[in-house]
C-alpha cells in the first residue's frame, strides 16, 4: 500500500528475522543511523520457531524505500525482506482506546463501537476501554468520533501486513519482491531524474 499522506509516501516492508537477543537493536540502530523515518514497527513470532516477523511502515520516496530494504537485507540476522509496494495485501492494526463515559454518554458510545465492529473490553465507573482492529483509516475515524466524549489514552500495535492468497489487478507481479528476486533490478530510480543527493559542504576536510 502506497498512500499519499500529506507529502510523505508510506510503504510497508515486512522482514523475517532471527529471534535472537539484540536483533531489534540492530534493525533500529540501522534505521536511526541512516536517518530513515519509520511510521510504525510491529514485531512478533512467526510460524517458524526461531524466526520473528517485523512489519515496518517506512516514510519516504521510492529511493528511500529501496535503501531501507537493501540496508535491512545487509543485516546478517535478517533472513528475508519483502517490500509490499504494488502487492495486494491485508493490512491490520489493533488499537486500545480509553474513553470517558458516564451513564448518559455510555449508550451513545456503545452504538459507535457497534458500527465499527469494535469491542468494549473493560468498563469502569467513568471510562471504557475499546478494542478496535482495522486499517489506519478506520482506527483514526473511530478516534475522531470518540473525541467529543474525551479520549484519555490510545495504544496502537502498529501496522501488520500479509500478502493476499489471490492477487487481483492491484497486484503488479503477484509476489512481494524478496531477497532473491530483486538484487539486480531493485534499483528503481533512474539516472537524471533530478534527485539531489545529500549536500556535501558541511563535511569535514581531510
Amino acid at each position: 500500500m502506497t498512500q499519499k499522506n500529506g507529502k510523505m509516501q508510506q510503504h510497508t516492508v515486512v522482514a523475517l528475522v532471527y529471534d535472537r537477543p539484540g536483533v531489534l537493536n540492530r534493525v533500529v540502530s540501522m534505521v536511526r543511523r541512516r536517518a530513515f523515518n519509520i511510521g510504525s514497527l510491529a514485531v512478533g513470532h512467526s510460524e517458524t520457531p526461531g524466526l520473528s516477523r517485523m512489519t515496518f511502515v517506512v516514510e519516504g520516496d521510492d529511493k528511500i524505500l529501496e535503501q531501507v530494504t537493501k540496508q535491512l537485507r545487509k543485516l546478517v540476522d535478517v533472513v528475508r525482506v519483502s517490500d509490499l509496494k504494488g502487492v495486494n495485501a491485508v493490512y491490520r492494526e489493533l488499537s486500545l482506546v480509553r474513553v470517558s463515559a458516564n451513564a448518559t454518554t455510555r449508550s451513545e458510545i456503545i452504538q459507535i463501537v457497534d458500527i465499527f465492529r469494535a469491542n468494549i473490553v473493560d468498563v469502569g465507573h467513568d471510562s471504557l476501554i475499546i478494542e478496535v482492529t482495522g486499517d489506519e483509516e478506520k482506527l483514526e475515524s473511530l478516534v475522531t468520533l470518540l473525541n467529543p466524549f474525551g479520549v484519555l489514552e490510545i495504544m496502537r500495535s502498529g501496522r501488520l501486513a500479509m500478502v493476499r492468497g489471490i492477487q487481483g489487478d492491484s497486484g503488479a507481479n503477484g509476489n512481494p519482491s524478496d531477497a532473491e528476486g530483486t538484487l539486480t533490478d531493485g534499483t528503481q530510480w533512474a539516472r537524471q531524474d533530478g534527485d539531489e543527493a545529500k549536500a556535501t559542504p558541511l563535511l569535514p576536510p581531510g
Partner: protein
Amino acid sequence: MKLNGGQMICQALLNEGVDTVFGIPGGAIMPLYQMLPQFPGLRHILVRHEQGAAMAADGYGRVTGKVGVCFATSGPGATNLVTGLAGAMMDSVPMVAITGQVAREAIGTDAFQEADVTGVTLPVIKHNFLVMTAEELPRVMKEAFYLARTGRPGPVLVDVPKDVFVEEAEFDYPETVELPGYPPKMEGDPDAIRRAADLIAQAKRPVIFAGHGIIIADAYKELQEFAEKGQFPVTTTLLGIGSFKSDHVLNIGLPGMHGSAYANHMINDSDLLIALGMRFDDRVTSKVSLFAPNAKVIHVDIDPAELGKNVPPTVPIVGDVKHVLRQLIPLVEKADRREWLSHIDELQRNHPLWFEKDDVLRPQDVIQEISDSTDGKAIIATGVGQHQMWAAQLYKFKEYNSFITSGGLGAMGFETPSAMGAQVGLPDRTVWTIAGDGGFQMTLMELATMVENHIPVKIALINNNSLGMVRQWQDIFYNHDYVATLYSGNPDFVKLAEAYGLRGIKVTRKDEIGPAIKQAMEWNGPVLVDFQVEQTENVYPFIPPGTGVDNIVEDPRLVQKRVK
C-alpha cells in the same frame, strides 16, 4: 575433544589460517591470553594502544587479503578499538576482533571495566556476537571469519565473557556455515551484463572507475584485459590506487576533490561511467547533480545497497567484480578510441598535475623522491590530510595493492600502526609510512612496538608543524584565520625516535632529501625521517565541496604561469 573457551578461540584461529594477532591483555581477556603459549603457531604482537591493534590488523588484512585479528580486554580496551573497527568497515577490510567481557553474571551491573561493546560497535561494523556459552564458540568463530572475508569484507567482533573463556565444551569445528540471511552473490545477472555490454557498445567517451573492489576481488588481470580490450581510460579512486598499474598508458589516476584536473575534466566529458567495486563517495562526486552530467552509469558492486545509494545507475550489477568482468569481457568489442584518448591527452597537457619546484623543501618533493628511490615498489601507508593526498597524487605505484590509507573514515593516526601491520604481513616488502605531524602524534606510541618486534618500517614525517588540511581550509574558506591548527610546541621528532630506539634523521633542506631516504633504506630497522617542510603549501587541485568540476581550483602559481 574438550577444550576451554580460550583454547577453542586459539584453535579456531589456527583453523582459519591466522598466524598473527595484535592486542593488549587485561583482566577480562586474561584467560584467553594465558592459553597462547599452548599455541605456538600464533604470533602475538603486543601493541601500546588498542587502536593500534585494530589499525595494525587492518593494515595486515589489506596487504595480505587475509583476515586481520586483534584482541582487547573489556571496557576501555574494547572501546579503544572502535576507531580502528569503524575504519575497517568503511574501507571493507576483513578483520576479526576478539574482546573480553565481564563475567556472565556481572553483565548489566556496571561492573568494573564493563562496557556494552556489542552495543557500542554495532553501528560501525559488519556484525558482532556476544558469546554466552563455550559451546557456541566454534560456530561463532566459523561464522565470524566467514562474514569478515566474504561478500563485502568487513570487521566482525566476538565479545566473550571472562568465565566463558574458562568454561569447557566439546570442540567440533564446523566445516560450513548456515547463514540464510547472508547470501553473497558472485555472478552478475546475465541480462544486466548484456545491457551493460550494449551501453558500452554505444559509448563514445567511456571511463572506468576502478575502486577497492578490484583489489579485494583480486581482479587486476581482468581489469587490465577489460580496459585494454575496450580502450577505456581508467581512473582509480583513493582506495583503488594499486588496482591498475600506475605507468599504464590508460591509467588517468585519481579523480575527485584532490584528483588531477584532467581526470576530473575527463569524467565531466564522459558519456559512460563503468564503476567497478567503488561506491561514489562524496569525495569522488562532489555535488552529485553536477557530476558527469552527460554520462550513463554501469555500476558493479557486491553490495547491492551501494547501487543507487549515491549516484543512480543506468545498469546496476550485483556481483563480485572479478566474476562480472569475466562475464563482460567476451561481450566487449575491440574499440578504436583514438579521438577520446587524444582528447584526454590534451586535457593532461592543459591541466597537468603541477607543483612548484624551486629551492624550498616542499612536501611534494619528499614524496616524489620516495617514489623514485623505491622505484614505485614500496608499500605506502598514510594518515589523513595533505600528505595523504600528495602521496595519492605523486607516488608512482608499480605493484598492485600497495597503498594503505584510511579512505572512508579518514582516521588520522592510521599511518603508523597500519604500516606496522602491513610490514608484519609482508616482511619482504619495503614499507614506508608517509605521516603528517598531526596524525603521527595520535599513535606514535607504536614506535615501541616496532622496535620490540623488529618491524623495519621507514617513517617519512611530513612535518609542517600544523594540521595542514584544516589550515588549508582556513586559507580558502575562513580568510586565513588559523584557529587551533598551528603547533608551537611540537617535540624534537628525531630525539623522540631515538628515545624509542629508532634511527632518527632530520631534513631541513631540499638537497638532503635523497641522501636521507637512502640512509633510511640502508638502515636495517625502523627509521624516522623528520622532513621539516614548507608550512604554507596547499594541495591542488581542489574541488570545493558542494560544487563541481567547473569550480576546480588549480594551483594559483600554475594559473599565473599560464597567464604569462
